[in-house]
């Protein structure tokens, strides 16, 4: 398999996901299959090819340094599950 159980647990932790035992097995298998499939690309020789980050050959899309946004606080905060005054309210993160 292209991915280990430990790697799946590690990725889940980085994404702050709590997985059940069954899910860990399921995702290990599914992610493994995806990675195996992607590994087909390794059959190609790409030594002389620049890694492609973008599908379009475009550079330097820039904007001038001008403030164009007005006050959108209420709209922005209306998407929050919880708020307190003008702030987003989130569960406290405890360092562990």
């Amino acid at each position: 398999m292209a991915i280990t159980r430990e790697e799946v647990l590690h990725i889940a932790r980085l994404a702050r996901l709590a997985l059940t035992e069954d899910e860990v097995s399921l995702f290990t298998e599914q992610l493994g299959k995806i990675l195996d499939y992607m590994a087909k690309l390794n059959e190609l020789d790409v030594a002389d090819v620049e890694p492609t980050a973008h599908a379009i050959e475009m550079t330097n899309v820039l904007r001038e340094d001008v403030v164009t946004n007005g006050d959108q606080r209420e709209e922005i905060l209306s998407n929050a599950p919880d708020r307190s005054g003008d702030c987003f309210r989130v569960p406290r993160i405890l360092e562990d």
Partner: protein
Amino acid sequence: MEYEAVIGLEVHAQLKTESKIFCGCSTRFGESPNRNTCPVCTGMPGVLPVLNRRVVDFAIKAALATNCTIQRRNVFARKNYYYPDLPKGYQISQYELPIATGGYVEIVVGGERKRIGITRIHMEEDAGKLVHEGEFEKAHHSLVDFNRAAVPLLEIVSEPDIRSPEEGGAYLRMLRDILVYLDICDGNMEEGSFRCDANVSVRPKGAKEFGTKTELKNMNSFRNVERALEYEIQRQIQVLREGGTVVQETRLFDANTGRTVSMRTKEEAHDYRYFPDPDLVPLEIDDEWVERVRKTLPELPLEKIDRFQKEYSLPLYDCQILCSSKNLADFFEEAVKLHPNPKGISNWIMAEVLRELNREKVDISETKLKPAHVASIVKLIDEGTISGKIGKSVFEEVYRTGESPEKIVEERGLVQVSDEAALEEIARKVLENHPKEVESYKKGKTGVIGFFVGQVMKETKGKANPKLVNEILRRLLSS
């Protein structure tokens, strides 16, 4: 065994742009929470970030001023981690292709020059601010303000070339001065527009390999960086002397105790899974762009210090103090143009002016004081119109009111008495009234002359020319 410290500093400098790095929100400090937010900087689905041109201009400026090589092809990367102050779940930064590499900053420590290498400079966005709700210990929730999220930053990483807290402080101050001279950063550590983390290790003097390093955080003033480095170096040396080993960890500086304390967090290997941001196309910087920015570079702090030493024949110390702020250096030069006594004006600025500025914690540009004021005071003293002592009281009033020194001197009748006959009469009276002191002067206790001068000054309300008074008294006493 003798040990030496190996220190590298990582600086985050907030750029003085009007708008954020990838959207048109204001960067203004001190707005009410979340006033400066929009769908882009709060990471709403489907939005597209667009790079602020001035951020690139500023990064090129910083790169040129620190002697870096500018990378022609720049790619922005996503640094992935989950924390509530980061709305997108990743920070847009630069990873493999930063804008600048391989430069140096020259510092002066103990009269000696030294180059501190710059590993890299890259552009990135700042995170938001978290405030714990209620009492810290009991808080179950945090409040998030995204005004600071996506404010542009430069991360400037030094080589591990720094060998002492003093060198660290000198490097940090020089870097701050450079960025402030370039007018791209406020350089205010207390307000967080200029932040510093440190990597510190120690090794036996002369050793080639590095020891285990710790990372220091939470130092919000230049002085505290020096204190934290000092403490941490001694702590590590002591651990090694007692036969222990230094643990690689992050430590927080506590300004109250002057100590560094382990964060005691599970140090899970950082795994940021960087990858090129597909929302931002690559940035190509051509020669023309670099040259255009190069033309806007001002005289830099060290160049100014060198010029001041040559042009005004001032001691290195004076030049360093005067050039620590561009406004102060400009103020000095203006004043010298009006009254060409560089050392006299430098003395006046370093003593009287800086005392007021430090007391009120203000920049010279925020006061009523003008270069012409200081030039006039020094000129009035040099010409013998007022005494140095009167000069000080005139200065206090000028500083407070912004009135011209000449006017204050005239209105308050402070013109120095240099009338020899008048002063001699006063001096005679003083001597007559203090026969005991005259006796001891004649027995060889010549130091008592200071007392007589003081008495004459008192009689004349400080207006007597002290040099002349001295001469007259000596003449009278020896006759």
